[in-house]
C-alpha cells in the first residue's frame, strides 16, 4: 500500500501512474471478464436489465402518454381518439318531449292539463295511461268526440297526425306523455305503432270513443 498509515491525512500517495491507468483500462475495455465455468453471469444480467428496463419503460410510456396528446394533462383522461363518434342513447321520453311541445302542446298545453271543457287533459288521464293500442290509433287517425276523460265530457275533434309524424316520433311523444306529470305507464315502442298502422291500413275517418273502447277488452 503506497499511502503509509502514519501520514495522518496530510497528503495522499498515488497507487498508480496516470499513464498505466489509461493503458490498463484501454485493455480492460476490450476484454470480457473471466469465464470461470465457461459462463459469466454479469454480461447476461446487464443485458437482462437493459431489456427489462426498455420493456417496462415502453409499456409505461405507451400506457400513460395518452397518445402524446398535447391537450391531455391527466393520465386517467378518456383514451378514445379525438373526433371519434360516441353514441349515447337518449331516452325516448326526452326525444318525445320535442314532438310534444311543437305539436301536441298547442291543444293539450305544455302542462298536459288541456283546456277545461275544450281540450281534455293528459296528466293523470286514464286514456293516456291506459291501453297503448287506443292512444296510438287516436294519434294516427284522429278522434271525433264525444269522449269522457277523468269524469268530464269533451266533444271536440282531434286531427289525424299519422301522415305528419313517423312511427318513432309517435312512440316517443306517447312515451313522454305516459311518463310525464306524474303519469306512470310503460313506454310505447315504435314497432307497436308500425304494427297498428299496418293492421288498420288506409283509414281517413277519425276514431270515436265507442270504437276505441272495444279494442283491447
Amino acid at each position, binding site marked *: *500500500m*503506497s*499511502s503509509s*498509515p502514519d501520514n*495522518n*491525512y*496530510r*497528503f*495522499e*500517495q*498515488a*497507487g*498508480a*501512474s*496516470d*499513464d*498505466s*491507468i*489509461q*493503458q*490498463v*483500462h*484501454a*485493455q*480492460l*475495455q*476490450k*476484454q*470480457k*471478464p*473471466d*469465464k470461470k465455468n465457461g459462463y459469466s453471469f*454479469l*454480461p447476461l444480467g*446487464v443485458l437482462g*436489465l*437493459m431489456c427489462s*428496463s*426498455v420493456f*417496462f*419503460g*415502453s409499456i*409505461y*410510456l405507451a400506457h*400513460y*402518454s*395518452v397518445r*402524446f*396528446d*398535447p*391537450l*391531455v*394533462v*391527466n*393520465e386517467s*383522461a378518456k383514451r378514445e381518439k379525438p373526433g371519434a363518434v360516441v353514441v349515447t342513447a337518449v331516452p325516448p321520453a326526452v326525444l318525445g318531449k320535442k314532438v310534444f311541445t311543437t305539436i301536441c302542446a298547442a291543444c293539450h298545453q305544455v302542462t298536459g292539463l288541456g283546456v277545461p271543457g275544450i281540450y281534455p287533459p293528459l296528466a293523470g288521464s286514464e286514456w293516456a295511461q291506459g291501453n297503448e293500442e287506443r292512444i296510438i290509433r287516436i294519434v294516427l287517425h284522429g278522434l271525433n268526440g264525444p269522449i269522457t276523460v277523468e269524469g268530464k265530457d269533451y266533444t271536440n275533434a282531434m286531427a289525424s297526425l299519422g301522415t305528419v309524424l313517423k312511427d318513432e316520433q309517435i312512440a316517443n311523444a306517447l312515451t313522454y306523455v305516459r311518463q310525464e306529470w306524474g303519469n306512470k305507464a310503460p313506454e310505447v315502442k315504435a314497432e307497436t305503432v308500425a304494427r297498428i298502422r299496418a293492421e288498420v291500413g288506409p283509414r281517413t275517418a277519425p276514431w270515436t270513443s265507442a270504437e276505441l273502447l272495444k279494442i283491447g277488452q
Partner: protein
Amino acid sequence: MNSTDKNSRAEQIEIDASAKWPVLIFFGSAIMWLLLGGALQLIASIQLHTPDFLSACAWTTYGRVAPAAQNALIYGWGMNAAFAFGLWLMARLSATTLRHGGWLFVAAKFWNVGVALGIAGILGGYSTSFELLEMPRYVTLILLVAYAMIGVWGVTTFSIRNTENVYASQWYLFGAAFWFPWLYAIGQIMLLKAPVRGVLQPVVNAWFVHGLYGLWFVPIALASAYYFLPKILGKPIANYYLAPLAFWWLVGATAFAGGSRLIGAPVPIWISTLGGAANFLLVVPVVVIALNFFGTLAGNIAAIGSSITIRFTLISMIGFVLASVLNFALSIRGFAQIVQFTLLTDLRDWLIFYGCFSTAMFGAAYFILPRLTGLQWRSSALVTAHVGTAVLGVLLLTVGLAYAGWTQGKMLNDAAIPFGDITKAMTFWFTFRSVGLGLLLIGHVAFLINFIWIACPINSRGTPSAQFSNPPDLKLSNESVTEGHA
C-alpha cells in the same frame, strides 16, 4: 508500451506546475462561495422555523435569501470547483500541460464577478422566477463568455493530448464541457431572452434544472470517482468493459428525464410520463456504475481508513446511488402524489449536489492541492473534522429529511389537518435541517483554514512540504482478466 516511472513523474510535475494557479484560483473562489452560500442557506433554513430571524430587512427575507443561497452554491462553489478539478484532471489524463493560464485567470475573474453581480441582483430583488436561473439577465452574457473561455481550454487540452488511449473520466469531463453551455444557453434563450409561452416554461425549466444536476454535476463527480479509485487503490476498475455502456445510457436517458419533475403539473401528460420512463431506464447505468465503483472498493476496505480522498469518494458514490433511487421513486406517480412539494424533493436535489458532487470535489481537493503546492495539509485534525462533519451531516440530513418529507407528505394529503398544524409539526425537522447545515458549515470552515495554509503564499510559509513517491504502474490482475478471446 511502458514508459519509465521517472519520466512520467517528471511530466506530471510539469503538468501540475502549469495547472497550479488556475486551479488554485478556481478552488479558492469555490471555497469562498461555499461558505457564503452555506451561510445564506443556513439563514434561509433558520427562517423556516424562526420566521422573525433577519426578516426586518428586505435583502434578507426568505424569498431572496433562499434563491441567493442556491445560486451561490451552484454557480459559485459548484461551477468553480468543477472547473478546478476538470481542468486539472483533463491536463493530467491528456498528459499535456494546461496552456494559457493567463486566459483562465481572466475567465475566472469574469465568472466570479458575474456570479457576484447575480447574487447581489437576487438579494436586491431583481431575481427572475425560474429555478436556478434566478440571476438577473444582465449576468447571463458575462457567465456564458467566461464559461466559453474556460470550457474551450478543457476541450483544447483534450484535443492536443499526448496519450494513445482515452479514459472514462475524460468521456464525462469532455461531455460535461459541452452539456453545460447547451443547457444554460437554451434555458436562458427559451425562458428569458425569447420566452416560450405558458405551459412550455415550466417544461423548459424542469429540463434545465434536471440537466444541470444530471448532465453537469453528476458527470464531474463520476469522472472524479473513476479517476481516484484506481489512482489511489492501485487497482483497475472492476467490470470496466461495462463503463462505456453506462456512459451512453446515462447521457441519453438523463436528457429526457427532466419531465419527471412535473408529475401532476398541468402540462401535457406525456412529458412527465416520458421523464418517468427515462428514470426507469436510468436503473441500468446506475447499476453498472455501482458495480464499477463498489466492485473496485470491495476487498480494499482498509484503504477507506487510510485515504481521505477515498473516504470522500465513497460518500459521493453512496450519494449518487441514493439520489438515483430517490429520483426513481419520485417518478412513480403514487409516491410522487404523497411526497411532492415536501422536504423529500429538496433532499433529492441536495443529495445530487452535496452528497454526490460536493463530496467528490472535497476528495479531489485533498488529493490535488498538495501536488500543486508541494505542501502538506497542515492540520490533520481539521481534515478529520471536515470529513467527520461531512459523514455525519450527509447521514443525518438524508435519514432525517427522508422521514420528515414522508410525514409531511402524509399530513399534506390529509384534508382534515389544517395547514398551520403541518407547519408546526414540521418545525422540529426544519430546526433539524438547520443543525445539519450548520454542522456541514463547520466542516467547510475547517477546509478553508487548511486551504489557506496550503494555498496562500504568505500563510503557507510554515506548512511542511510533501514528498511524493513515484507511483507504481497499474497491473492487470490475472484474477479479473483472461487473455483476450477474439
